[in-house]
């Protein structure tokens, strides 16, 4: 493996090109994600941030093809290790899911089978995706559980989900997601339901595994502080549009898009005297009420009439930073 790394590092592990997603409801076709492009490199921690309704979870579902095509229609290109995901037959896709691409969700209790011990659930994914024998599988389960810091992996493997706390369940989910040495881990708000001290534990585990196995991570979150702490690359979504994307130190550190800057202004921190953080007026509109032109213009303090005129072009800077705005701040 080490010999192949330099070549692999050059081309992205995952790439989305002009991705649009439509939700179908009978005759209605609602656009929920518009023209989103981003790449995730080998061993990269990529964070998609956005408020509710920004389309971040829909992107994750589209990658995993978790919804049937008559409900979720995808336009544009999604490719994994150079293979287009859209045309992959379902049997091939099934091999990828839980294999090379795996996913962890916000609420581990709803993703685990309540009637099956943790070890047995991990074994199931091993049975499907690997040709390990029974003995090797049991060793692998113990190895995985100790990798996510269970002190007594053999004992933990015997436990049922209800016998674990929220943080332990999320760690068990991570162990299951890692069972078949994935290349890409999609983590959809994995710590939102957890206490901060547990959140830190889980984040440290994900980060350590990324470093150790050069895992690519697509991290979906609404928490900018968390993203600032762990992500290398950040994409900011609003109304299904990628407003700004690039290295963390540029997007969060020197935000050029007024939405990114406004979002950072919503993060609470200590006030001095009567100071107020400005926040953002109004609320996130529903996909049925998105304005023409820039989706953010009605809440943006810099917006002008031209912002409503039509689709906003993407500005590229330094080859790694994109901004979708007519009036960037910097």
């Amino acid at each position, binding site marked *: 493996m080490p010999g192949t790394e330099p070549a692999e590092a050059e081309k992205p592990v995952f790439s989305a090109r002009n991705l649009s997603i439509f939700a179908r409801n009978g005759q209605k076709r609602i656009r929920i994600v518009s023209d989103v492009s981003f790449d995730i490199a080998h061993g990269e921690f990529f964070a998609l941030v956005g408020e509710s309704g920004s389309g971040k979870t829909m992107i994750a579902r589209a990658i995993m093809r978790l919804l049937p095509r008559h409900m979720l229609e995808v336009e544009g290109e999604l490719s994994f290790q150079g293979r287009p995901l859209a045309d992959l037959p379902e049997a091939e896709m099934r091999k990828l899911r839980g294999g090379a691409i795996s996913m962890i969700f916000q609420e581990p209790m709803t993703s685990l089978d309540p009637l099956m011990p943790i070890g047995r659930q991990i074994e199931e994914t091993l049975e499907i995706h690997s040709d390990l024998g029974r003995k090797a599988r049991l060793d692998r389960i113990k190895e995985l559980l100790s990798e996510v810091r269970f002190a007594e992996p053999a004992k933990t493997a015997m436990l049922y989900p209800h016998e674990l706390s929220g943080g332990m369940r999320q760690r068990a989910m991570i162990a299951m997601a890692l069972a078949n040495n994935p290349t890409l881990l999609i983590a959809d708000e994995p710590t939102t339901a957890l206490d*901060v001290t547990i959140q830190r534990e889980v984040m440290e585990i994900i980060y350590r595994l990324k470093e150790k196995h050069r895992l690519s991570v697509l991290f979906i979150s609404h928490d900018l502080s968390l993203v600032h702490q762990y992500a290398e690359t950040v994409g900011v979504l609003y109304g299904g549009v990628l407003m700004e994307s690039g290295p963390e130190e540029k997007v969060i550190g020197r935000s050029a898009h007024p939405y990114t800057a406004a979002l950072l202004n*919503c993060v609470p921190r200590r006030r001095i005297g009567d100071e107020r953080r400005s926040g953002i007026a109004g609320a996130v509109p529903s996909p049925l009420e998105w304005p023409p032109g820039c989706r953010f213009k009605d*809440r943006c303090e810099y917006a002008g009439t031209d912002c409503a005129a039509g689709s906003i072009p993407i500005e590229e800077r330094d080859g790694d930073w994109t901004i979708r705005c007519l009036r960037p701040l910097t």
Partner: protein
Amino acid sequence: MTGTTPNDTLVATDIRKTFRRSNGLFSPASETRALKGVSFEVTPGEIFGIVGESGCGKSTLARILVGLEEADGGSLALGARTLFGPGAPTVSAVNRGIQMVFQDPYASLNPRMCVGDAVAEGLAIANVPRAEREERVAETLSLVGLTPQDARKYPFQFSGGQRQRICIARALVMEPAFLLADEAVSALDVSVQMQILNMLLDLRDRIGVSIIFITHDISVVDYLCDRVMVVYDGEVVEFGEKTAVLDHPQNAYTQRLIQSVPRL
């Protein structure tokens, strides 16, 4: 009407609560000591933060303060009035002068009741005449950034942030000395969360209402509160000025909690 003035201090002394759960006929009942003797004071016009992780007892404390749950021991006094305690009659929830705002604005409003009726319900229970009710509802809706016309609408016509404003109006219409907010911004988007936090600050400045703000989010406490109390496993582990507690935590748990918070 409630007999309280804005100048009353809320004093909670040694509040205890144990939940007992039956394990069937042949096993002994199990006990959870949710609150193991919690004491604190909230002074008029202050924003007081109660912080702790899930299961620490902070919501049980909130329910006891407003009268949704009965304490096993301890007492609560607002100024000269004893709200509950040994040898004193327990004051009903309507007359305590403490009103609550819940976490989920989608679950805490009756979808079949128009906003005006929802906000006026407490006043109706307190036998306030209809004309005065309407007037006070209109006033309170303006106070939280809604319009008197919104009284005729139904909850589904509002966004999450607006619904939380309605819930705050419903609490404020009773002219409480204390507003008790239990994770009142946790379910909201960050952009809307900041609007509600700023509104709470404005309400305190304009009408002098004291706010007890229960949360797990340290950065919200840092933005909003004057003093803070850290609860762990049913006990107060640290208490004091926000700046002192957050900048120089003494207790090991508080230190761990503060270190775990990601910072921007």
